[in-house]
């Protein structure tokens, strides 16, 4: 099964950077992953979050409130 990665954030600069970082990490790892951006508030608030950007991997909140590094995402994927 492909890993599901969701990036939650209302479209601010930090959220965009996070999306790019995740994309890069997925490419590097070669893991099959489906990356989705969630930008609408109601969709976002289904998760228990307070600060954005948030990275959700297989429905689990992994990173919240900051831009992760590529290495961090690589670790999450393995």
């Amino acid at each position, binding site marked *: 099964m492909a890993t599901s990665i969701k990036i939650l954030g209302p479209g601010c600069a*930090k959220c965009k950077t996070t999306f790019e970082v995740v994309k890069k990490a997925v490419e590097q790892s070669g893991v099959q992953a489906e990356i989705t951006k969630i930008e609408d*508030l109601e969709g976002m608030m289904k998760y*228990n979050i307070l*600060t954005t950007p948030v990275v959700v991997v297989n429905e689990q909140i992994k990173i919240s*409130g*900051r831009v992760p590094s590529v290495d961090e995402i690589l670790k999450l994927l393995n």
Partner: protein
Amino acid sequence: MFDWLQHFADWLIYAVIGISPQSHLGEALNFFVYDTIKILILLFLITFLMGIVNSYFPIDRIKNFLSRNKLYGGEYLMASTFGAVTPFCSCSSVPLFIGFVKGGIPLGVTFAFLITSPLVNEVAIAIFLGMFGVKATLVYVVSGILLGVISGAVLGKMNLEPLLTDWVRQVWKQAKADQEVFDAEKTTFVQRIPTIIKEAFGIVKSVLVYVLIGIAIGAAMHGYVPEGFFEQYIGKDTWYAVPLAVLLGIPMYANAAGIIPVIQVFVAKGIPIGTSLAFMMAVVGLSIPEATLLKKVMTTKLLLIFFGVVAACIILSGYLFNLIL
């Protein structure tokens, strides 16, 4: 503490580059070099210290605490203080708002947090310290926190829940105290330091361009605008200066990093400090971009009440600063 830096700026501008200390350009450049280096040093130190504080009080834990404990009014002070300690990001303000509502935290307490968060933060404190010194910084931080407490308490008394947008009202009805255990990071303090330093660098980097622009505008005004220039227009005796400054400041938006260096020049050239601070608080705390974001959770009426109450409190603190500083 920063004498060495002034010597360095003097040496660089007057001796190395060879611009006369009497010229406008020399004065402006000297101010720019000195202020930029001083503020960058302070910015890094304060961001680092706040990062340490923050690693002990992450926002999730604060929310759970406020959600579970009844503090008989003390929750306003706590929310406002935490708003000051938590790094502010405007795109997080709406998720944060809903998260608080969801956790059953009263609306007024949520507002207290929301008001203080952009006003008092690590970047504002560092720049304030660099430009106005310790005493004014303390007055600023304390009054920023009180402003959040008072505005929050006033808004809390007004029963504004029916004025939330529909879906947020649904969230509010289903609100319950958070019971989930906060998954604390299992790293020791020493292990966390590299991350904190990295994040401090990140914050400094992200505001750097605003700081530079702010200081450049400040430096240009410092070198070219004559002493007491503004005083002829807005003196301490002009009673309407404070409300006017606030009204002008509300639609504008700049972060604390960009606006404080400009404010410092206002003060140096004769605008009373209370009037300048009120202007700054209005620019940083209330703005059109923020209103657009909050529109998703508040009806227009609530938004107007919110802005009205906060603006009134800013005006009052402006008069107060003019009296005591």
